[in-house]
Each structure stands twice: as C-alpha cells, then as structure tokens.
C-alpha cells in the first residue's frame, strides 16, 4: 500500500479533549458542527494515526452546573434566538465521543487498538470518501464494535457505521451485502442481534 494522504484541514471537525486507549472525546469548533453517528474520524499524524467511529454526541452548557434556559418566547424563529443572544455560541458546546477502531503507521491500516491513545488537543478530521474506502477494505473492525459496551445500542452503532461507510462506495448494496455476510459469521449464534442490524441496513 502506498503512502497515505493526510486529510485536508477543511475536513477538521474538532479537537481531542479526553483520550483513552479505547475512546476519545472531541469538542467541535463550531456549535452543532458534529460528525454523523457512525462516521469515521481520524486523529494524529502519519507516524501514528488513530481511527475512531463516532458513537455518541452531546450539546450542552459549558459549565456543568448551569443549564440553558428557554429564550424563544418572543422570537419569531429559532435563528432569531441565536441572533439576539450571540453569547450562546460561547456558552454551549458540542462534543462527540468516538470508539477507537484502528490505527495506521502511515503505510498500513491496522484494525486493532493503537499502542498509545491520541494526545489531547490533537485535531480530529472527518475521513474523506477515499480514506473510508481504504479503511473499509477489511471488516475486522466490526469485531471491536460488537464487543464493547456503549451508551448506544451496538446494533444501532454498527448499522449506522455501515450505512455511513457505504456512502463512500460506488455500489452501496454490494458493500452492505459483504458487510452483512461478515456480520452473519460474527453473530452466528445471535440471530436476533443480526436481524436487528440487517433490518437497519436497508437503503
């Protein structure tokens, strides 16, 4: 495999604010500019690039104890609220959590956990289609996804991930079919789980 191209700055979606071996949390630069659920993101540089899949996202007050209050009673539209209270952009923030599903040394993508977690303040990029295609050549990451306990149901997350990835492929149906067959093998003794995922894969 050739040298991997690093993502453009325009694909940058946030910055790591919490990191562990299996997860990292990133804050968005812009309120609500969240990557989609199941989206593939990457952190780090060519020496160690960590891949994560977005499994959870929140938008809340910057200060944990201070809840936002309703402001729109006299406004005509939602946008008006933000316009009349520009401080909101600073008082609220969007965060997303990702599950680490692989890493790359700049040449090869490995679909298992990296030796080190990403550093705080590393930039998080949403992977472009080309990169998604490269990553999804193998379905080994599905095993990591299926075997973690997360606040969202694993079925939802797997289905969302595959739907997101399929957008990068020309023949979405063929990609989903191949993924489905891989899942059927991984979930050979859990048909109800398999059925729940396959049901969410329909386009």
């Amino acid at each position, binding site marked *: 495999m050739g040298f991997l191209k690093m993502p453009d700055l325009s694909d940058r979606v946030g910055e790591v604010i919490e990191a562990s071996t299996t997860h990292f949390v990133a804050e968005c630069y812009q309120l609500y500019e969240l990557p989609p659920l199941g989206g593939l993101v990457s952190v780090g540089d060519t020496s160690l690039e960590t891949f994560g899949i977005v499994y959870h996202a929140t938008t809340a007050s910057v200060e944990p104890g201070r809840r936002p209050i309703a402001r729109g009673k006299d406004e005509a539209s939602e946008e008006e609220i933000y316009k009349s209270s520009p401080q909101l952009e600073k008082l609220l923030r969007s965060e997303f959590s990702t599950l680490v599903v692989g890493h790359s040394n700049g040449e090869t993508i490995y679909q298992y956990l990296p030796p080190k977690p990403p550093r705080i303040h590393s930039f998080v990029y949403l992977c472009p289609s080309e990169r998604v295609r490269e990553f999804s050549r193998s379905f080994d990451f599905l095993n990591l996804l299926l075997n973690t306990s997360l606040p969202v149901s694993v079925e939802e997350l797997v289905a969302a991930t595959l739907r997101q990835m399929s957008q990068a492929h020309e023949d979405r149906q063929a990609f989903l*079919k191949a993924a*489905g067959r891989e899942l*059927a093998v991984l979930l050979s003794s859990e048909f109800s789980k398999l059925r729940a995922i396959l049901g969410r894969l329909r386009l």
Partner: protein
Amino acid sequence: MIGENARQPLGIVVSGSVDKGVEVRLDSSASVEDMVVGRYVTIEGRQRRFFGMITDISLGVTDPQLTVNPPDTADPFLSEVLNGTATYGTIHVLPMLTIGGDVTSLIEGPQPVKTVPSHFSMVSLASDDDMNLVFGEEDANRFFIGNPLDMETKLCLDLPEFVKRSNGIFGKSGTGKTFLTRILLIGMLQKSKSVNLIFDMHNEYGWMGTSETDGRKVKALKQLFPEKVAVFTLDEENSRRRGVSTDFVVKIGYDEIEPEDMVLLRQTLNITDLAVEASYQLRRRFGRQWIQRTLDVGESEDTQELLKEMNIHESTFQSLRRGLQTISRLSFIEPHAPVDAVNTLLSYLDKGMNVVLEFGRYRDITAYVLVANMLARRIYARYQERMERSMSEDIAPPNPLVITIEEAHKFLNPEVASRAIFGTIAREMRKYNVSLLVIDQRPSGIDEEVMSQLGTKITCLLDNEKDIDSVLAGVSGKSELKSVLARLAPKQQALIFGHAVPMPVPIRTREYGSAESYKGFIGEAGSGQQAKKDIEELWD
C-alpha cells in the same frame, strides 16, 4: 497431477471419520439444490487426493433461533446475506479411493480409503478426467456401459475382470434389467474372451426384444452379431412364428433327467419331500429309464408289491407320478432325444459361439428350471472334466463360460442352493472356468452364501427393504449406498459395485435400441476385428 486444472470449489471438509464419511460445508456459491446424491466429488487433502460419493445432503443453521423465527425470505438482501453464512448446506461424502501425491502412488493407481482428508480440505465435483483416472478409458478390455450420473464420462467395465467371478443384475421389474443385460452380453461377447450361454425365458436376447415403455422392437444379439451368436430353441414353431432363424432345436429325453432335477422342481411341481426322496430310489432301481418306467407302472398288484419292497408309500408315489406327468406333457421332452443337446451346445461353445436358448411358449417356471438346471449340470460336469484334464495333461482349457439365468431365486433360494448346480457354480466360482450372470428381481430370495460370492453386482432401482439389504450385504458404506440405491430413477439407472469397479458408481445406462446405438455396438466389434485382421496380415 494434483490441482492440475482449476475447479469450481464446492466447499470444505469440516468433520468426518473413515467409518461414517466426511461432512462438507458448502460454499455460498454452491447451491444445495444442485447437489445430487450419487455424484462424485474429489477432495484435495494435503498429501493425497480422495474420491468420494455424495451420499446425503442436508441443511444447517448456525443459530436454532433461525428455525424458530425464520427471516423474511421475500427480502432479497436478507436472504443473500444469510445464504451460506447463517444458513448453509452440507453434503455428506463417503470417501472411497485415494491417490497419493508421489510418483509411486500415481503408478499404483487409486487405492481403497484408509484415512480421511484433513480439516478444511477443499472439495470439488469430480471432472471427467478424474473419472477416467479411476475407471479407465475404453480400450480392448474395457467396455462402455453407461455414464456416471450427471456426467458425460464414459464409464467402462473391465470385462475380462468382470467374468472372472459370478455376477448379479438386480432390480424391480421394469427397471431395465433386460436392457442392461443385453448391453453387458454384447460387451462380454466382444471383449471378454468368454462364451455365453443364456437361458432366455422370455425370448428377449436371441433375435428381438421389445421395449416396455413404448412397445418398440429392439434388436437382440443374433441380429447384431450373426457370426457370433447361435439361437437354440425349445419351441421351434414359436420361433418360426416370430421369424427367428434358429440354429438348433433342443429335445430332451426322459433318460437325461436326474433325481437332482426333481429337487429344484419340488416347489413348482408341488410334490412332497418324500416324493423327491422316492425318485432317488426309483432311479437306483430302474436306472436311466426311471422316468419312463415310473410312468409306465400301472396301478396293478405288481406296483403295490414294488412299492412295498422299496418302502415307498402309495401317496408319495402318486405325488411323484403326478409331477413326472406334468414334465412329460412338455412337448420338448421325449422318451429319447434324437440328438444330444449338451454335445451340440458344447460344440458351439467350443467354437466360441454364444448360445441363446429360447423357451418359446414354455414360459412357465417348471420348464425353465428343469431345462436350465439339467443342461447347466451336464455342461458343468463336462467343463469340470475338461479343466481337470487340461491341468493334468497341459492342454488348452475350454473357453470360459458365463451362464445367464433369469428368475435366479428359483435356482438359488436357500432351500435348494446347496443342492442345485447353480449354487455350486456360484460358490466354486471360476475354478472350472464357469461363472454365472444372475438376473433377479427379488434378491432377498437368493441364498446369502451365494449372494456373498457374487463378484460384481449391478442393481437397478429396488424399493423393498429386504431386497436392498441383501444386495448391499457386506459392502462398506452400506447405509450410505442404500440412500443412493433407493433414489435411482426407475429407468435406465443402476448402481454398480464390487469386483470389477474400483468404487461403487451409479450410472445412467448406455442407450440401446436406436439405430445409432446399434452402430456404436457393432462399430466397436468391427474395429476389433479389423485390428485382428491387421495383425494376422502382419504375420503372414
């Protein structure tokens, strides 16, 4: 040799044992509906290659939940994903032969299986080349009798090997036994160097037969090979009416019938055991003329005295007499035959002619059993004598003889097999250059000991449990073959196993009855003769 041509893989071996065969999980690309019981597969083991037969096909699921709550099959996405992953097909393969990868084993050829292929060995359908490797190609000894099921390969029987032992053809009535026998007889008269004597109960082998399906007339042996086949008949008038040119009319004298013949006829003539015993006594007393004398004895005082003297009960005597009268009413039986039928028969056989003995209108079992047993007994005695002489005096032994009998259970049932000549021939095999081709629809009626001595068995569809058991007795992989046998098509299909084939094989028998098929049969003979002529010319 191994992996020579890329094949479409069917699946991989997942479990198994030598005894029970191996389980093969099908790839998702191979449809379970394309698999057929009885087809041949090859398994590429690590060091050797295995040949086996599909003996069972089953469906599997990874999670029993699937069978309880089946998925929506109308959804193509779901069914495509599940097919071959969560739901899959398995085939059960009975390995039968192996070929090692090294040079010596290639020379030795296929060997019987003594092990199983290792885990996850690749399985694919056997190609025509594989089949040729196992069964050999058509040549001077091998005769094309049919195609393995669903294959184009010509399956060839090694006929000189085939006739070394007694053989059997079985199958329900109407499954094509007669056609199969005709094909085999043609093969034997072309390629086995043996001569055939056929007791043709239904007049089907000599001149012309009919196809049961469409009533079409088919040519029989003499029409195809006039220079090699002679037709003898018991009923000249009937043969003439059917337009058969016969070579000899067989007449049998009373003096040629022995008490041993009465043993076989006991059931069909409905005479008592004691009456059979009495026939031995009468034979001792009256000599060769015993039948004539017995029939001549009236119910006079002398008779009473005679019986008393011989200690035969009146009713026993009457029972025997009734039986003998039935025999004497057969018009080919005469007090004294003008020409000895056995001598004539033997002279034909010595010339290398094959003899078909037609029974004409005497289709009842009494005539058949009597004549077949009597002629076979005397021919066998002569063969025995000549073989012994040839051994001691170092002269050429007589031509190997194959005697074909129909309704074999009448001659070979456990009650009479030990005493009748056919039982002896079947048991002693080829010691005296005589073997049997047994044709029967109820193999369970044949003595076990005789069945076990049959070298090659060819069986068309059988559906009686007892018959299937008796045919397959002693064959390895019996239960697997049973399922193959029970699923043969009711026509034109047969399972061959035993001495002449390296492994059991179900076949679709060769076409017989069309003008082309005749050409095929005669063509083979023609080329053989041409070769012989060429060789002769070379030496002149």
